[in-house]
């Protein structure tokens, strides 16, 4: 039942632009062939998510980011234990570090798509700017998923 590609969008649909990750997942669900792709959403990253990386060939994390300068950024992730391990809102790099701790092996190639966000107020709708950023990010991810190889994804990093 495990598919080789995992796309994991996380964030809170009720917190304005924080919804960008789950909204991108919704778009993939309705516009992409999911035969080889598993989609997953959650509010935030937790330790258990390290186990979702098992038996994958490629993993894409998708998150909203107020620190993002461009419309979106696409980068490869490395395992790194950081201070986020003390909370249940972990960074993707820390999730990879947990994978290394648990599995005693290198995680599969993992990438992060950060979509530029501005406001994450509780109860707020998605902002106009974020809506535009989401559209462009969706086009980019659809193109990524049409050629799900490590080399191709590496070439696309920003």
């Amino acid at each position, binding site marked *: 039942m495990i598919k080789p590609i995992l796309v994991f969008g996380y964030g809170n649909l009720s917190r304005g632009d924080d919804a960008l990750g789950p909204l991108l997942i919704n778009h993939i669900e309705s516009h992409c062939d999911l035969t080889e792709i598993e989609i997953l959403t959650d509010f935030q990253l937790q330790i258990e998510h390290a*186990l979702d990386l098992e038996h994958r060939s490629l993993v894409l994390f998708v998150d909203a980011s107020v620190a993002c300068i461009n419309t979106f950024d696409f980068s490869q992730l490395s395992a790194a234990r950081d201070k986020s391990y003390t909370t*249940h809102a972990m960074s993707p790099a820390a999730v990879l570090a947990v994978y290394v701790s*648990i599995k005693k092996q290198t995680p599969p190639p993992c990438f992060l798509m950060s979509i530029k966000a501005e406001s994450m107020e509780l109860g707020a709708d998605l902002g106009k700017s974020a809506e535009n950023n989401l559209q462009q990010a969706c086009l980019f991810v659809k193109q990524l998923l049409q050629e799900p190889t490590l080399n191709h994804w590496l070439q696309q990093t920003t």
Partner: protein
Amino acid sequence: MYSHLETAKNPENLKRVVVDPVSRVEGHGKVTLLLDADNKIQQARLHIVEFRGFERFIQGRPYWELPVLVQRLCGICPVSHHLAAAKAIDQLVGVDPENLPISADKLRRLLHFGQVLQSHALHFFHLSSPDLLFGFESDISQRSIMAVLAAYPDLAVQGVKLRKYGQEVIRMVSGKRIHGTGAIPGGMNKSLSKAERDYLLEDIDQMIAWAAASVALIKTVHESNLPYFDDFATIPTNYMGLTQPDGALELYHGGLRAKNAQGQTIMDHVDYCHYNDYIHEEVRSWTYMKFPYLLSLGQEEGWYRVGPLARINNCDFIKTPQAEAARITFKAHSPGAMVHSTLAFHWARLIELLHCAEAIKELLHDPDIMGLDLVAKGEKRYEGVGVIEAPRGTLFHHYQVDENDIVTKANLIVSTTSNNRAMNESVRQVAAEYLSGRELTEPLLNNLEVAIRAYDPCLSCATHAMGKMPLQLELMDANGQLIDKLVKHSNGQIERLA
């Protein structure tokens, strides 16, 4: 007992120590201690800033939204709220529990066992095991699941995988790990496919083995320092929860049973639809949380504990064999009829974890979970009560609707509310026995958090970062002047600011 420490006789002449917020407890909790000139505790209170607005949000909504809506009450136990609401809404569509299709009933039980399994694994391995393995006064950098992963990798991985397995049970039954659907008015919206059933069967024997190992571990930990574990924050109390008609442990549906500290029955086989005739809630001026009590015993004597310790104390037996053997060992540990040790909550919790794993296996081998008769219908009613044993205790959902199916009244009693008085009593005991007359340090104050965490890591039914919040300790005199302040930063560094 330390009830005399709830309100000091002369608070104007006392110093105030504030532990705010309580870390690794989800939501906002604050402990205030009033000290006299000799640093003796004169007043100790646990304040839980629980936002009770949900009962108002619900009003005006159509009833069929409730099983999905109320899941937002809690980031750890959404399934418990989902199922408690569903049980109440069954009654609104005229379906009593005995008339629920057998497949729907068993699927809901499977969903609930998955929920309790994942929540108990989170509570013990992620949030409480650092205290038990490294010591209550250990360095703060040690007190996280990542430290457990480094020092006890096999144990930590088992905890992580146990929780993940429970989440997978939830996903298979309800479509998503968090905030899925599943229960609908009068039944369930899908059954389990053979592929889903086989997927869950792959790992269940391993989960049972790990759950059994965790019970052995907590027994060893407890017995390694018996006087300490038996005495820490321990209070003799009444206990309440659901049991089956034959007295067996029950988590999904049964009658209300309450026993006193000596193990004598206060009430038994009570239909929870009439809970208002047996349980009342008292309001106190210094906290948002209510104080429920058994009406027959009154406000002073009628408070009780709920949750794993209450359930294991109250039930006559457990129907799954390994958990029953563990229960017998657990009960034999206590010379009395009931186990009152607050830290024994963890032991009881892991017995239930084992029971859940065994029960999941039984259900996965039951063909009814793949049945297609999933929904019953009946005559509309205007009131429904759903009660379930959530991971941390008995959970009540009570709704009234009008002729247009709009909710006009809602009352929720969550397990934290039922344990409110008991948590305050435990905090007072820890404060009186471990803090009086000693220099105030973060490890000492962590003892208070350890007592609270034995009951509940989820105080406000909200999700806040655990361990990320700085811990502030403030020492003030009776005039409100700050005379000392300790701040625990998110990296574990402690800084004295005053």
